[in-house]
């Protein structure tokens, strides 16, 4: 095949006759049939598909709760829901989005699908444990959703004590859900670490690994080191409720600050569980559409590890106004600033990767570039909150809400959408509709800013978060925010609809529609059950686009 010669070569290629032949080739989707072949599968790719379905359902539930919250906040009075109803709605939104969607989604969907493919392995190291982690996710999610539907939980996703040990809502089943989902995370992380260590293709040295693998590896480290702490912490909340053991509630002789320390010891690293995989996706997408090697490969790889490690020592920045000592606060503040540096390094490197590229703007690239735009604001506003003097004013206001949505939604969701579109041809064997993809990227970007930017202003003005009713002067910002949320909702629903359509009716693609260099593109789309007909041998780094265009298959020789 020749080098790129058309402005948009992918659509043209997808119609070639060679591609039609590939479609009938046996692959992981048509290898076996029947529901049992899915529910008892050991194939990492099928498990990824199970996760796509379940996490998308979780996302829709979480989004529904968000819609209720935003509608209620349209007016200062509590006219849509009662105080308790509102509290349950935002708790449902937080618990579902954090534990059932953001934490698992990229590792479980894209990580599961891509880790073995990217390192040239036939599967993960422990396929049955992989399947079990999906079942654990399902059981945990069942408990969580049961808690939410059967009466609700009103603690927020943070379960702060002693509120959570005294409220009469379904805290115990939600806590059990979080505990079980935690094991799903631990198993996934453990599986990835073993796989990356032991199952790399011949020639695939650590510094030839794609950056997505580096970021999944760093994420897995956090998952196995941090998750046990949240598990045992929420379990202690449940035990305290049941048996009145004094752990966190001062009424029984416990200490509420202890809960906050333990909770954030996991939950701050957990935000890196959510965002690091996103960094990995962006590091794959940008070189592919800029047609050049990534700038600062080893700096990006090492910055992921640095974030994973330093990320464990910044949790105290959530406790600046909780009664933590001022000097402990200073240490946490300094480290929180330090962790901004590796993050900045990544942004600079992605930007520099565009330099001297040959850039095209398909949907994944648009999402990736919009990601930088949103994540930049999310990251910079994090510095505001790391500063003790400013956090006193901003703590638990809408400024914080805006900040973490810029990181979690603007950052993580856009990265996920970039990744889903980028690897969609590999996952489904079909192309997504390009125009709709670009349109949804634009709608999400615009809707996102309208929704969350006013919240920064409102937060500095003093609007506290988790307020069911509010004083009238904040209404103008809330109206903007709710209006933006409806735009954002459309932007998120579009991919759900057109990707579902594409799954059944999209045009078929060849093995490498984007002409990317990763090993995952060296096998057919969709891949066969064992991933590769012949295990590839790796001879160069992951982003050698110039070499690739010269002789097509740089890895397999």
């Amino acid at each position, binding site marked *: 095949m020749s080098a790129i010669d058309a402005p948009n070569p992918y659509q043209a290629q997808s119609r070639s006759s060679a591609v039609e032949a590939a479609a009938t080739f046996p692959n992981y989707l048509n290898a076996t049939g029947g529901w049992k072949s899915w529910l008892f599968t050991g194939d990492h790719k099928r498990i990824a598909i199970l996760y796509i379905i379940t996490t998308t359902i979780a996302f829709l539930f979480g989004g529904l709760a968000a819609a209720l919250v935003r509608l209620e906040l349209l007016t200062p009075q509590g006219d849509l829901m009662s105080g308790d109803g509102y509290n349950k709605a935002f708790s449902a939104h937080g618990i579902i989005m954090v534990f059932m969607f953001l934490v698992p989604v990229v590792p479980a969907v894209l990580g599961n699908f891509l880790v073995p493919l990217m390192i040239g392995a036939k599967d993960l190291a422990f396929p049955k444990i992989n399947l079990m982690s999906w079942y654990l996710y399902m059981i945990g999610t069942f408990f969580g959703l049961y808690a939410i539907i059967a009466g609700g939980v009103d603690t927020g996703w943070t379960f702060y004590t002693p509120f959570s040990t005294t409220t009469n809502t379904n805290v115990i089943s939600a806590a059990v859900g979080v505990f079980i989902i935690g094991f799903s995370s631990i198993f996934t992380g453990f599986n990835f670490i073993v796989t990356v260590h032991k199952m790399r293709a011949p020639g695939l040295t650590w510094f030839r690994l794609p950056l997505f693998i580096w970021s999944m590896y760093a994420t897995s480290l956090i998952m196995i080191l941090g998750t046990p702490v949240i598990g045992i912490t929420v379990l202690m909340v449940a035990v305290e409720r049941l048996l009145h053991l004094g752990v966190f509630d001062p009424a029984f002789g416990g200490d509420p600050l202890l809960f906050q320390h333990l909770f954030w010891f996991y939950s701050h690293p957990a935000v890196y569980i959510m965002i690091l995989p996103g960094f990995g996706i962006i590091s794959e997408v940008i070189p592919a559409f800029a047609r*050049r090697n990534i700038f600062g490969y080893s700096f990006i790889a090492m910055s992921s590890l640095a974030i994973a490690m330093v990320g464990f020592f910044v949790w105290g920045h959530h406790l600046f106004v909780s009664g933590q000592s001022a000097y402990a606060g200073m240490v946490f503040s*300094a480290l929180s600033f330090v962790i901004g540096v590796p993050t900045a*390094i990544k942004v600079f490197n992605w930007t520099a990767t565009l330099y001297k590229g040959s850039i095209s703007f398909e949907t994944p690239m648009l999402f990736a570039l919009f990601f930088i735009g949103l994540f930049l604001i999310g990251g910079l506003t994090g510095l505001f909150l790391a500063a003790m003097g400013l956090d006193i004013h901003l703590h638990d206001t809408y400024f914080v809400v805006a900040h973490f949505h810029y990181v979690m939604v603007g950052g993580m969701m856009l990265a996920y959408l970039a990744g889903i579109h980028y690897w969609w041809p590999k996952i489904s064997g079909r192309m997504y509709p390009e125009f709709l993809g670009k349109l949804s990227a634009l709608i999400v970007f615009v809707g996102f800013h309208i929704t969350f930017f006013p919240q920064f202003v409102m937060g500095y003005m003093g609007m506290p978060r988790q307020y069911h009713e509010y004083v009238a002067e904040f209404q103008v910002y809330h109206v903007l925010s709710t209006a933006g949320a409806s735009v954002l909702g459309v932007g998120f629903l579009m991919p759900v609809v057109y990707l579902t359509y594409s799954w059944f009716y999209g045009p078929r693609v060849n093995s490498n529609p984007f002409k990317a260099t990763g090993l995952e593109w060296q096998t057919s789309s969709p891949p066969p059950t064992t991933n590769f007909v012949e295990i590839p041998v790796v001879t160069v780094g992951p982003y050698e686009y110039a070499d690739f265009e010269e002789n097509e298959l740089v890895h397999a020789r």
Partner: protein
Amino acid sequence: MNPQVPSDFDIFPVQASTVAPSVDMFYLFMVGISTFFTIAIPLAIIYFAVKYRRRPGNDKARRVETSTVLEITWTVIPFFIVMGMFFWGSRVYFLHGAEDPNALEILTTGKKWMWKFQHKNGRREINDLHIPVNTPIRLKMASEDVLHSMFVPAFRQKQDVMPGRYTYLNFEATRPGVYHLFCNQYCGTQHSNMIGKVVVMEPGDYQKWLGGFTGDPPEKVGEQLFSSLACNTCHAGDSGARGPVLNGIVGTKVALQGGNIITVDDNYLRESILQPEAKVVAGYQPIMPSFSGVVTQDQVNALIAYIKTLPAGQATGVASAPAPTAAGEAAATATNAETTGSEAVTPAPAVRQDVAPEPENNDAATTAGEAAGSETSAGAAQTTAGEQQGVQ
């Protein structure tokens, strides 16, 4: 009166405390830096995206070497920028936290879902807080149930309020007016209704506002409680009592069983009332019953206020002992006393001598203001007088 609020579409809250301008200044600096990067990086992206877009003449993949110099540059420069932010941010923080021994203390209790305040002379109010302008204020806060948080945006001040111990919020209002007061830590059904107003008044108006009140100040209530709860049977103040002498004990260091030394403060007194077995003074038996559930938060506040007024001990010779005793020596005395049971009362005052006078004199001298300056030798007894004068 309605809270002073900015117009419909303002982006800055009112500045009404001494720290507000420095917080806003730092905020503007942060906004400036962020705006720079938020514009510069997307501009670079757009520039590259246009200049290097795929088009005839630029349709080949390239290899571009990584520049280590560039990598180090954009590691080191951001590092120094964020460290600058760290130092400035911490400086602003310590302005917030600055305690003024002179501060007017107001007892604050958060409960689902209201704020209760009690002023020095005993006057109470709910959800509204009246304070004098240009006067350092110290809210001594505790919660009766779950976590709450005291937040006054116009003051740029906030502090969580906890059920386990006292926390403090220090500030000085600079502009008379009415400002929002929010509960900022989620606390359940009516969290968003746990709001109120801070009314900042001219000092004269504040005194007038206080003046109408004829009830008992907290320490008076505490005195009655001290006898009605029979605290005085053990903490009677004579040697040989079953509990430590409380006279003048606040601010001193006492030796605990197990050898630790603790400074007696609000939190230790509170804990000793509610969980007396937690930290027992050396030489005493853990025989005191818990008053948890027996006394309310208001009553704990009252008891502590009363204990603070107790004159420093008779027969311990505070006034006569100038006591430049080294702290180590005093501690040693205390440790010795552990072995001798009933004599244990003596080391506590001995320790007190070298530790206590400083804060207490400070308190007395500054609170009393222009009142007779020669009170230093009289010690803690004058503190009470000073405090009361200060309020009038």
